[in-house]
Each structure stands twice: as C-alpha cells, then as structure tokens.
C-alpha cells in the first residue's frame, strides 16, 4: 500500500517526461514555443505553490520576483557577456536572496496584510525599474535578440547530436528546468521540511509548540519560492528575447495566483493545468471576443466561478485563514 503510493507519482512523472521529450516531433515550432511558456509558468507555479499551497502565505507579488530574475539574466547577458544558460542559476540565487530578505519583514504580516503588501510590491515594481535607468535600460528595456550570448537565436544549436531551432531549443530548455525544478521541490517537500511547512499552514500555534521554528521555515519558503520565480523570470526573458518594465506587470502576478488556484494548490497535474490555463487563456478567449479586454474578463469570471463551485480547491489555505482571521 505504502509502496504503491510512493510509486504512483514517480510513474506519472516519468510518463510526463516521455510525453514532453517526444512532443516537439509532432507539433510546429510555433506550438513548441507556446509549450515552452507553459513550462515557464509551471516553474513559477511550483515556487508559488511552495509558498501559498504548502506554507499558506499568500503572495500577489510573484511577478516582481520574476522581474528580478528576468533583469538579472538580461543585465548579465547585455552588460557582462554571460551565456544565457549560465545566467539562470545566478538569477535563482539573486532572487532567492531577495525573497529570503523580503520574507523577514513578511514574518510580521499575516493573511490579508501579506496579500496587500505583496500586491503593492508588484504594482510599484515597474516604477522602480524605470527609475534605475542606467542599470535596467529604463522604459526602453534591454534587448537580447541577436546577441551571441543567446543560444540558437541566430543559427540552430546542436545538442546531443540533434540540431535544434530556437523554438525547439527553448522548449527543451524550459521543460528541462521545469521538470528538474519539480523533482527538487518534490524531494524537499516530501520529508521533514514539507511536513513543517504544512504544519505552519494549518496552525502556526500548533506548529510552534511542536518545535517548528516559524521564522526559519517561513523565510525559507519565501526564499525558495522566490528562487523559482526568479528562474521562471530568467527563462521568460530568454524566451521573449527582451525585457522592459511592462514585461512583468501586476496582471502577471495575479495570473500566477489564478494559476495556483486553478491548479487546486498541490499536485503536479494541477500545476500543469494552471500553467496551461495561464498560457492559453488569451488565445481561448479570442473565441469569446477579439477585444483585448476579453482575457481578463474570462480569467476573472473563471476565478470567481471556481470560488463558487470549488472553494475546496483551496481547502488547506482556507483552513489556515479561518484560524487566522477568526473574530
């Protein structure tokens, strides 16, 4: 019984890895690029899920962490001539440290107030980026296209004996990162750490009295979660070959939360569903209306509808917030 429970997710994961590996042979380069974005959102969602799903800390500001990751990559590539893939771990470290530091004041904020503070961070991020023009290129942004540091952008790259166009390369890069990220998260969450984080979510008081250090685990969750968002932002910059302050708007932060909620906060399959939702929503909503406002309307309505029919999708969080805000 116990054994089959451990084997099922591994089998599901391997199945997914196989599907991911062979998929580009059956779809166009354009589709491959779209699926690469799914992997990018998946990476960010895995991170947000550690913070929101496991630890119960709401963040409406993960787009800001993605911005930090994206700009780390862009600045390293443009100003320091670092090859794109090597900027990804740097982005993870930089964003992880920022997230960890942000986690320290966030310790004093709970529930609604954390949502509010992170929301404000995400809204003011573009203004900060514009202000430090010399560093970030200001409103004009930084262009990566055509740089020799951007792998496969000018001519196909050969990996393991296969020649890959930019779109296919992007696809494999993003999915490799996302799946490795998932395995790391899975390893981290299945043991002691995961148990401690869930304890913090379900009842801070109970967790504390069982010897779980709230500051340690909450800041850890913030740091790790931000590092994932940073990696996603880094990949996002590589994929769009361009960053400017509007690459990471507040809408992105909100969509990430939408993705986690759609995914039902938990399983890999759920998170992939959330990532697919974020990526393909604008395309699907074209069926409803060609207006640029349509995607927002559709995602807003879906979000509200989910709360009507599936409030249990956020059961763990719900339970935690109930204890927190009981009056």
């Amino acid at each position, binding site marked *: 019984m116990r054994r089959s429970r451990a084997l099922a997710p591994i089998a599901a994961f391997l199945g997914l890895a196989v599907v991911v590996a062979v998929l580009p042979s059956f779809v166009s380069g354009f589709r491959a690029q779209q699926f690469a974005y799914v992997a990018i959102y998946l990476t960010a969602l895995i991170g947000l899920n550690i913070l929101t799903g496991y630890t119960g800390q709401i963040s409406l500001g993960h787009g800001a962490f993605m911005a930090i990751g994206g700009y780390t990559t862009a600045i390293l590539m443009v100003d320091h001539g670092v090859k794109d893939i090597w900027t990804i771990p740097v982005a993870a470290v930089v964003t992880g440290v920022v997230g960890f530091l942000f986690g320290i004041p966030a310790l004093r904020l709970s529930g609604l107030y954390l949502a509010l503070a992170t929301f404000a961070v995400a809204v003011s991020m573009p203004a900060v980026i514009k202000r430090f023009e010399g560093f970030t290129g200001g409103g004009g942004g930084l262009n990566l296209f055509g740089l020799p540091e951007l792998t496969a952008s000018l001519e196909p790259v050969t990996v393991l004996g296969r020649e890959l166009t930019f779109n296919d390369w992007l696809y494999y890069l993003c999915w490799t990162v996302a799946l490795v990220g998932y395995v790391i998260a899975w390893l981290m969450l299945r043991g002691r750490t995961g148990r401690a984080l869930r304890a913090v979510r379900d009842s801070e008081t109970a967790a504390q009295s069982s010897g779980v250090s709230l500051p340690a685990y909450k800041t850890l969750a913030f740091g790790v979660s931000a590092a994932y968002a940073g990696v996603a932002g880094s990949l996002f910059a590589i994929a769009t070959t361009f960053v400017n302050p509007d690459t990471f708007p507040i809408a992105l932060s909100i969509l990430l939360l939408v993705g986690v909620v759609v995914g039902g906060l938990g399983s890999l399959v759920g998170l992939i569903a959330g990532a697919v939702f974020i990526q393909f929503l604008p395309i699907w909503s074209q069926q409803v209306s060609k207006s640029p*406002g349509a995607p927002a309307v559709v995602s807003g*309505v879906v979000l509200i509808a989910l709360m009507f029919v599936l409030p249990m999708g956020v059961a763990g969080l719900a339970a935690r917030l109930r204890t927190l805000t*009981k009056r």
Partner: protein
Amino acid sequence: MADFWQQVVAGLASGSIYASLALALVLIHRATGVINFAQGEMATFSTYIAWALTTNHGWSYWPAFAVTLLASFAGGVAIHQGIIRPNEKGSVLRVVIVTIGLLLALNGLVTWIWSGEVRAMQSPFPTRTMDIAGVAISIQDIGTIGVVLATVAVLWALFQYTKVGLAMRAAAVNPAEARLVGVRVTWMLSLGWGLAAVLGAISGMLAAPSLFLDPNLMAALLIYAFAAAVLGGIDSPIGAVVGGLTLGVGLNLIGAYVDFVGADLRLPAALAVILVVLLVKPSGIFGKSEVRRV
C-alpha cells in the same frame, strides 16, 4: 515659500482623492473584514459611466455625476448580494480571491466596452488659478477638496444621526447581536458595499480630469488608498481621511523637494509607507490593535 504652499494645496487635493478611496476600503473592511482589491476597478468602471454620459450622450456634468453615483450604489449592492455574499462563508481567502477575480473582470470589461484608449474627462471646475496671499491655487484643487469633504460630512451624518447608520454600525461591530435586535445584517453590509462604490466613483471622477481616463486609472490610486487606509488605521474612517490627506501632502512635498524620489518613485514611496506602518504599528494612527484568541 509660495511654491511650498502651492505644493501643499495640490497635495491636499490628491490626498482627498486618496482619502475617499481609502474610506471606501475602510467601510468594507470594517463591516466584513475583507480588503476589497477590486475597489479601484469598481471606481474606474463608474468613472467610465460618467465619461460616456457626458461625452457620448451629451449630458452636462452634474446630472451625469448624480446618475453615476446612483448606478455605482446599485452596482455595489448588486456585487455584494450576487458575488460576495455567497462566498463570505468559510474563509477570508475565498473572498479575497473573488475580489481579485472581480478586479480582473472589471478591468477587462472596461477595455471591452470602451476600448483601452486614453480619454479626456471634463472637469466641473475651471482650470483657472486663484491668487490667495501670493499663492496661486487652482480652483480645480479647491473643488476636489470641497467635494470630498462634503461627502465625508454627509457620510458622517448618515452614520451618526440616522437609524440606518446606527444599524449599519451595529451590523459591522456585532453581526450576531445586531441580528437578534432585528437589524437586517446582510442588507446593511450590502448598503456598505453600495456606499463604498459611491465613494470610489467620487474619487474616480475627481481624479480623471487631471490624470486622464484609461482602464488602469485607479491601479496606482488603489495603492495610495491602501497606504492611506493602513496609515490611518484600516478600521478607522477618520484615519482614512487623515491618512489620505497626510499621504497626499507628504508624497507631493517629497516628490517636489527630494530629487532622488522625484515623480517616478512616488508609488514605491507609498509602498514603503504601507510596509513601515504594518511593521512598526500595524493598527495605524487611529486604529485599535486587534486582539486575537488562540
């Protein structure tokens, strides 16, 4: 020195706009314990109604203003009854996600109906300036401050001297006992949402002439309003007004005299206010600190 006072008056004008939106947030937070992330988008929607009435249908300003307030009130009540109330049971997170869904939906709807173009909104006040003791003060600023102060006075009277106001206060403070003495709590909460929508509409209509109307008009204003509400104490109506005015003047002076901040870093400055207040004195200036039983 004249320049300084000019900045102060301009700050009071923008501060009064923050104050009315902050007051809307406080009304809802006091009654239901929810932070309404859609407050700004509700206000934008209302402002577009006023814009459509004046520009597309040729109404003059004040009738359009009044009709917009009525429509906003109805909209606020409808949103509470139809969308918020069914999700109020259980967790606060559920309502927060609903208000975020509402934020997205209303923002998209505005673009859908009226397109994303930037529009010029007419102002009821002349753009001339008035000279008071050597200080040039724009009449629009004075009008803005006047409208907000009048609104606050009316609201205060409503809560203080009418039976409905008393019932609303009772419903917010102690819903269970209010229900026992015959207050229709749910409708009082809906009324609160209606009034909050009206306050938001006022702030939107006052902000639009100088900031120009586009679907994201209120996104930054919402952050200023959050900062104002948090600064004054998120449960205190007086705090919202004082917080709004303080923030308006403070940000304006910092923007004018501190080169590093300038016009660009006003939003992050508001964020800093939110963080510092929440960390140092979470109850704000006028709020009572929350006591929680574990």
